[in-house]
């Protein structure tokens, strides 16, 4: 680190905070899927990161192959269409995955679905690489939102791009909406009942299979939205993005207390901040920022496996 004056140092710090929050809200959006699925069937859905990746490619495919150029380049058409398309593709894949890979193993011992999830993850990633034209390398992704940035005049200036703000706002709104949905609606109540005790829920007239499919669908849709927003923010997507961000999101979900919606959001933001700040200030710089996230993950799992918002009584074997 060079010796710099106070204000530029402050502006660097604030920029990293901003970056961290943007990345963090993206991770939070993915973490919601992890946390919901784990909450209901106590499965670490390893392939959820790939759902996020598939959603991004679904959005990109819609923009490049389906929409006419005039619409694809007008942001107020392209953004909602791409978001919906990404969400739909991701949702479809998530539901298919549940139906064909996980449901047959519903009553199998715990190791089996976890290994299946690994297989699904590898298969999805490879299917994309093989079948999506040009996916062997990173693909450019257009910015679907207004170009430009807010500049906060501190030191060298703290630049926050509009699309970053959109990302933060959208993920907070979606997380809030999801929480309301789970707290207030009939289906949400069915989900909570299923997660507490599947057999009793069945006695109460709830079809657990439907609820589980719904969980996968919602989690998939959120991941799809996250995928499109990710592409829009970073302007390129690759097939490895799912694995990495999936692990981050899982870490976030655990950090916040798995099964807990608010926890996932807070955990996501924290992970984003850890990555941005560790890349700036820890020895090794950005080359080691992943390592710090994994260190946080291990520390949380070892010392506070119930996370910050989780109920401590829950037994995990």
């Amino acid at each position, binding site marked *: 680190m060079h010796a710099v004056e106070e204000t530029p140092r402050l502006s660097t710090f604030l920029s990293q905070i901003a970056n961290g929050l943007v990345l963090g809200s993206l991770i939070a959006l993915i973490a919601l899927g992890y946390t919901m699925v784990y909450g209901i069937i106590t499965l670490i859905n390893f392939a959820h990161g790939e759902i996020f990746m598939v959603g991004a490619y679904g959005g990109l495919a819609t923009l490049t192959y389906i929409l006419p150029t005039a619409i694809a380049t007008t942001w107020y058409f392209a953004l909602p269409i791409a978001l919906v398309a990404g969400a739909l593709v991701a949702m479809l894949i998530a539901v298919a995955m549940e139906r064909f890979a996980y449901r047959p193993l519903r009553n199998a011992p715990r190791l089996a679905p976890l290994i299946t999830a690994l297989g699904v993850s590898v298969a999805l990633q490879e299917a994309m690489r093989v079948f999506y034209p040009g996916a062997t390398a990173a693909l450019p992704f257009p910015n679907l939102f207004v170009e430009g940035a807010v500049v906060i005049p501190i030191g060298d200036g703290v630049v926050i791009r509009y699309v970053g703000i959109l990302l933060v706002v959208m993920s907070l709104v979606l997380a809030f909406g999801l929480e309301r949905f789970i707290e207030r609606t009939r289906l949400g109540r069915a989900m909570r009942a299923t997660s507490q005790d599947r057999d009793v829920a069945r006695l109460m007239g709830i079809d657990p299979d439907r609820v589980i499919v719904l969980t996968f669908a919602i989690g998939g849709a959120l991941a799809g939205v996250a995928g499109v927003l990710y592409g829009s923010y970073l302007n390129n997507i690759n097939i490895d993005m799912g694995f990495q961000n999936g692990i981050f999101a899982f870490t976030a979900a655990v950090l916040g207390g798995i099964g807990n919606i608010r926890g996932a959001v807070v955990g996501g933001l924290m992970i984003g901040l850890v990555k941005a700040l560790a890349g700036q200030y820890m020895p090794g710089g950005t080359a*080691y920022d992943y390592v710090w996230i994994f260190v946080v993950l291990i520390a949380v799992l070892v010392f506070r496996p119930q996370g910050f918002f989780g109920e401590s009584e829950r037994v995990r074997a």
Partner: protein
Amino acid sequence: MTATATPRTPATPAAMPRHTGRFAGLLDVAAPRSTVLMIVGGVLTLVGAYLPWATFVLNEGPYPEKATLNFFVAPFGVTGFRLHLVILGLAAIVVAALRRIPARHRIVRGLGIGVTVVALINGLWITVEGGGLGAITASEGSIAFGSIVALVGGLVTVLGASAGGLERKPVWTWKLPWWVEWVLLVVLFVIVLLLVAAVLTSGGQGGVVNPYAGVVFLSLLAALGGAFAALNASGLLTWVSVVSERHRTFSVIVLLIVALLLPLTSAGTEYWMTVASNIGVYAATAIGLNIVVGLAGLLDLGYVAFLGIGAFVAANLSGAAASQIGIHLPFVLVMIISSVVAGMFGAIVGSPTLRVRGDYLAIVTLAFGEIFVRSAQNNIGGLTGGANAIPNIPAVGVGDFKFSDSIMIGSLRLPSGVLYYFLIVLLVAGVMLVFAHLKYSRLGRAWIAIREDEDAARAMGIRTGPIKILAFLIGAMLAGLAGAFFAHKTAVVAYDSFRFLESVTLLAAVILGGMGTIPGAVLGASILFVLPEKLREFSDYRLLLFGLALVLIMRFRPQGIVPDRHRKAELTDPDVEDVAKEGPGPLPTRVEP
């Protein structure tokens, strides 16, 4: 128990098992005609084998030369997969016709599945890679029906066999004079050696020049799988394993000698020796992983890091120019140091097991694995060479003599790399010995107890904490040994040999083979690391198929190819297991929990 045949004749429909499941109706209809169906299936298979399969000559001439319809070119001279089909089909007919054979339906079902898979693999390959349906339908209007007829034959065989009701596997209790059994074992092991050599070299080296390698290999594997299933169903395999158990020491010695004789077979070239050595490395690592996952039931998703740590330690102590530590230690010492260092890291990675269980532990190990890869990628401490790797690691040698040289024994010239092969065979044998001894020791029983129920194990007075860490430590030490060998054999150690996918592949090898068993780990590692060599031409689809295969294995055979006799609770549904043991009969309907 002696072998009891329960003939199911059409005359006694009352003895027919009632079928349940998706195909129950079909099976009930087919049940009275099961023998006929099996024979018809076998005949169809034979016919299919002799019908043309493609409008061009397979395995001859430049691909895809659509030369001729080789229809009845050589009625008794079919080769390759068609020969396998003929053998399987004939066997099915003979077994189906002989009502005295116990477990006849079960045997024929194995054969039928083999036929089906062989027909599917070759048929698909011909249509997909041979230029679409054009490979089957020639422009002059002639059609190659072979694959379709054989496929139907296989399915009919399976249908007939399943409809007839699957009998319990017979148990043979023959006891022969000891010297007869010894001779028998030697003959069998030599046959196994020849089969291994045949499988290894089948189709030759994969690549652009040889697009057949993968399919020839897979087809042979499927045919052998069918034959193996049939032998297993007849109870003969169990008998052989009982016999070899009776002469345990003798079997182990013969197996070791037989393994050392591989260079004398058709696999005795430099290329195949290298492939075999690599398989050995992964087999040794897989056995180490088997301790952690198979015995102690602790899922480790970052295991390949220990192989990597062993390899990097060895690379740094090898005197390679790029290594940070400029000393060159003798290989044996290097192996010991690599193993100890890897073991230390194993204990560190294992320490969270004191507090973390189940899938959370899997994530912790994954995180450790990722930390290792990232650190190695960034050339941490200058020890790993980062993206440049550590190249030019000198070969193991004594004085001027290098292990990578070819050697002459009398007039017999062995290919280069053969000494590495011998070394890895001994290494794998040593690792197996360690595993076998541990498995049946006090420690091994403690691991298995922890796997089955950790709280109960603790209640029985097992100190679960140290024992779980010991599983990681010993497993990592074995991987470290393999890593030291790997570094010297390949001469280059790079971080990207130790990625997450490698860990998953190792885990898949253990699961595919059968958790907690030695042959399982070796078989799994062999299949998963030979396949990429054979499927070079299809390397694009390799991982895709791998992922799907993982899903399918978990769905249909979670206990693996060689299931552990003692292992039940972890992966198989106890209800299903019981049903399988009861054999035929009205299946109890599962009560929804």
